[in-house]
């Protein structure tokens, strides 16, 4: 068990293959790096080095499915950030930096974990959930999944086109979005804050009891959603949370 972990702690060179704009505030960075295959939900650490030797490290969740040709990170530009502006304004194909991982063994979903699975994301909290949904669709398409995704606006839904396409063609995948600062664009979506009442309504519409729930977003979002799920009868032990906090 410790051999792969020890392997994951070694810094390696990551080569940027593509940088693709996802939303006004998020870019996807596609990388080639000699890492062991990750599990859906895991993250990597990255390390950037300035000419004077100063280094900065951050953690980013992996958005790509395990086994994908390139590792995809989706990076939100944070106001006053130190590292995220590099990815938005400087990074281009052919550039490289250091990376290690994959890291994290709790906020993960594997096909053998089964379902139905409930994924609830707020803002950039969608990223590790996207890896799970992509993995599910590729390796366990019979497992049912509901993704509840809250963002400020339609334009700020990361992976929006891909998600809408998955909703249209995959009967096992249900997507419900809620936009908190803009009216909804379809009758199956919402435009309210994701509170207990809205979650109850969405879960009732799905009609499944989740075997596992994964909740990712800001701390306030995760606190509200996990408390609401527990109040709605989802077992606390079946809920896994990942909270994004601090600067980046």
């Amino acid at each position, binding site marked *: 068990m*410790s051999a792969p*972990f*020890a*392997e*994951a*702690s*070694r810094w390696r060179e990551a080569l940027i293959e593509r940088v693709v704009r996802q939303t006004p505030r998020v870019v996807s960075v596609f990388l080639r790096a000699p890492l062991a295959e990750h599990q859906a939900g895991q993250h990597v*650490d990255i*390390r*950037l*080095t*300035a*000419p*004077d030797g*100063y*280094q*900065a*490290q*951050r*953690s980013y969740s992996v958005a790509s499915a395990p086994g994908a040709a390139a590792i995809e990170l989706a990076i939100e530009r944070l106001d006053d950030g*130190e*590292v995220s502006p*590099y990815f938005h304004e*400087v*990074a281009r194909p052919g*550039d*490289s*930096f250091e990376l*290690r991982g994959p*890291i*994290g*063994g*709790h*906020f993960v979903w594997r096909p053998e974990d089964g379902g139905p699975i409930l994924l609830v994301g707020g803002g950039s909290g969608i990223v590790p959930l996207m890896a799970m949904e992509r993995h599910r669709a590729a390796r366990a398409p019979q497992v049912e999944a509901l993704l509840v995704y809250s963002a400020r606006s339609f334009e700020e839904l990361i992976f929006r086109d891909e998600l809408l396409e998955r909703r249209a063609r995959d009967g096992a995948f249900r997507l419900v979005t809620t936009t908190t600062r803009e009216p909804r664009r379809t009758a199956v979506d919402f435009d309210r804050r994701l509170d207990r009442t809205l979650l109850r309504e969405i879960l009732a519409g799905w009609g499944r009891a989740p075997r596992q729930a994964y909740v990712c977003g800001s*701390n306030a979002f995760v*606190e509200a959603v*996990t*408390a609401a*799920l*527990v109040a709605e009868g989802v077992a*606390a*032990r079946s*809920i*896994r*949370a990942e*909270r994004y*906090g*601090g*600067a980046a």
Partner: protein
Amino acid sequence: MATRGFFGRPPGKDAARRLPPGQYETRDFPVLSMGPTPQVELATWRFTLREGARPIASWSWPEFEALPRTAWRGDIHCVTKWSKFDTQWEGVDIDALFAAAGIAPPTAFLLAESYDGYDTNVPVADLTGGRGMIATRYDGAPLAPEHGGPARLLVPHLYFWKSAKWVKGLRFTPRNEAGFWELRGYHLYGDPWREQRYTGDP
């Protein structure tokens, strides 16, 4: 090797001295937990010292509040890379806890155990001698549930995942047994100054 076009924003002199390798300073207090915040009621709260499965000593909330108090002010470091300076905590020193229980530590290792099923291992020597406490107050107020209230372990010289939230007791173990994150690729000891984040770090 430098990253093309990256200059960063190195911390000032004081912060640079106080930041372990790979950390940056944050002014807010980020929260990281593995699941929902458990609702721990003071009326039923207990804190128990165990040797293996056997309880050695146990306190209710009023009994725990009556123990001698200690305060600590200093810097904390999370393995997710944020550090927060000058945090202020109050609680019960581990030395005082052992004294109140009338015990000498029976083994050299323990697991801090939490109400949500989390646990983490810490050598006893890292908690005694004024190096650890069970904290019940932060910044002059009762510890908020999302930060581990009513009580959490505070062992600030190690990465903060060792400072277990919602702690319900300490269990002495014959060996250094890995806890929740330690079983999932995180370092067995977790010294931020040696950057012991993950299994395989020196």
